[in-house]
């Protein structure tokens, strides 16, 4: 045990003396959370739009004031000719134009249906879809209010409720993703590199000749990163609650428990990589290309897995972050208990055991 502690202490010296390591360990999570939380959001705020109101009546005034009141849009100016609209789009200054025809109010009052034209700049399709959705929502709401007074029979209106994330804040889906990413980075890459480094500098041989059991060497290497990842989780959670206003709906204990499981899965993956490679560069490349990319692309935190081609959907199943993402969303945002996530937990546990068994086997072969 004393030998083990001496080893762990040495590992901490390594970590704290290397500025790059320290930066990745502690700077990265904070930077990621801030970046994903504030800068990289799916929400489109303050889009500049122009309105061409040819009707100029009570109804259009009400709709326009509703648009103005929302923080999604900034009305640039009121425009009188269609030509102007095209010019504005070409200048690239506006995202959308809204056109009320001159008979808007008449139609609405007498025919009970009126048309409004929405033109959006679809050179960025995501933004275009989002802003048109926002405007439709505002107009629908207005229409809904009108109907309350009119008391028309047989009208089906959909009432949409966004569960768990009523404001559709992208932060909610980002934070679990960032946690998966940061832990992946810290655990897989850092562990892999720290073990391979010993091989490269020749100190691993000295360790293997020493009475320390190989198991203990690996364990002692992993423990500092386990602790540091733990601190990272807490940092990310505190930051997301305090700065980004993210609610933690489920049990914090369960959240920490599943995160620990994910950390261990990542650590064992890092150990596996370190055993299979012999230079730091290899370890780094494999961790980055083989782990980081799938974590970003295939874990479902940036791009929905359901929309991917079947091949990618199948591949996504072997990405640990995918399962972690599901688990953490269930616990943190939906506030579900263990009963809802036991399957994913089981898969992650299975992966961990697989990585560890393969690692231990290969490590022994190297010794023979």
């Amino acid at each position: 045990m004393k030998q083990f502690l001496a080893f762990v202490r040495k590992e901490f010296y390594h970590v704290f003396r290397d500025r790059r390591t320290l930066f990745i360990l502690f700077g990265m999570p904070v930077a990621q959370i801030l970046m994903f939380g504030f800068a990289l959001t799916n929400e489109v705020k303050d889009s500049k739009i122009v309105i061409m109101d040819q009707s100029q009546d009570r109804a259009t005034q009400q709709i326009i004031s509703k648009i103005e009141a929302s923080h999604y849009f900034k009305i640039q100016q009121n425009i009188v000719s269609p030509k102007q609209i095209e010019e504005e789009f070409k200048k690239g200054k506006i995202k959308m134009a809204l056109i009320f025809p001159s008979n808007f109010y008449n139609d609405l009052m007498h025919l009970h249906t009126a048309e409004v034209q929405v033109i959006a700049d679809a050179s960025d399709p995501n933004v275009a879809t989002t802003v048109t959705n926002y405007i439709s929502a505002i107009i629908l709401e207005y229409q809904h209010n009108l109907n309350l007074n009119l008391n028309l029979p047989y009208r089906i209106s959909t009432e949409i409720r966004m569960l768990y994330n009523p404001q559709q804040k992208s932060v909610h889906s980002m934070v679990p993703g960032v946690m998966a990413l940061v832990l992946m980075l810290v655990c897989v890459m850092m562990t892999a590199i720290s073990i391979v480094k010993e091989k490269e500098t020749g100190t691993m041989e000295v360790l293997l000749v020493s009475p320390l059991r190989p198991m203990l060497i690996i364990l002692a290497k992993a423990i500092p990163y386990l602790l540091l990842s733990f601190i990272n989780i807490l940092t990310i959670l505190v930051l997301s609650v305090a700065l980004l206003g993210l609610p933690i709906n489920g049990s914090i204990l369960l959240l920490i428990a599943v995160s620990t499981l994910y950390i261990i899965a990542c650590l064992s993956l890092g150990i596996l990589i370190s055993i299979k490679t012999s230079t730091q560069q290899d370890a780094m490349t494999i961790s980055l290309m083989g782990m980081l990319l799938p974590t970003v692309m295939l874990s479902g935190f940036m791009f929905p897995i359901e929309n991917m081609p079947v091949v990618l959907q199948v591949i996504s199943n072997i990405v640990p972050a995918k399962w972690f993402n599901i688990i953490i969303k269930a616990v943190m945002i939906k506030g579900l208990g263990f009963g809802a996530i036991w399957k994913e937990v089981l898969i992650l546990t299975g992966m961990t055991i697989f990585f560890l068994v393969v690692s231990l086997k290969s490590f022994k072969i190297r010794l023979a």
Partner: protein
Amino acid sequence: MAEYVIKAEKLTKKFGDFTATNAISFEVGKGEIFGFLGANGAGKTTAMRMLCGLSKPTSGKATIAGFDIYKQTEQIKKNIGYMSQKFSLYEDLTILENIHFFGGIYGLNNQQLKSKSKQLLHDLDLEKEAKKLVSGIPLGWKQKLAFSVAVLHNPAVVFLDEPTGGVDPVTRRQFWDMIYEVAHHGMTVFVTTHYMDEAEYCNRISIMVDGKIEALNTPSNLKHQFNVPSMDQVFYQLARGAKRIE
């Protein structure tokens, strides 16, 4: 049995079709400095790795300090020290931290660590540098420090794999003084080298060619046997016959 600290009998290691070491047999006594020579690729490192328990022999027998290399690797590891040709201390740890770490993994207690490291720093005249990072001290010092660390736990045998590579002649001489010192106190030294002047310092040397030990005797007997004036020529005569080319 008891006087031989290392005893190898037809020790063989095959990698597939390739026989790295071919049935080598030798004994090394207590306090002996045993030189293990051979051209690159002759099988020295493989033989050494088997004796250290890093590699399992394909066939043959060997004991280190009386312990069997198949079954008692744990005990062997406690009784050997090892210093490899690559520098084997941690560059980002201080001298003192390195001493404490290696002492620690060999199970020395705090009191032993304290007295041993004090003694070691005094012997190497490194007391003032104790808190400096190893990366900042000259190579010669590092090698001497690595050797001291390798024998810190007072093992029965210390294995040195080309310990003086790249070190200046003065430091090499000092290094060998340290080797004589530990051997004088009864520690067995098993050393590989490419420097023939160093071979002369050994009590006995063996020369490996193509996985086999082709010669094993004291330096003066070998020179006599091959009828040449220097170890250089002994080595050259033997290694010339080698078929393996790296």
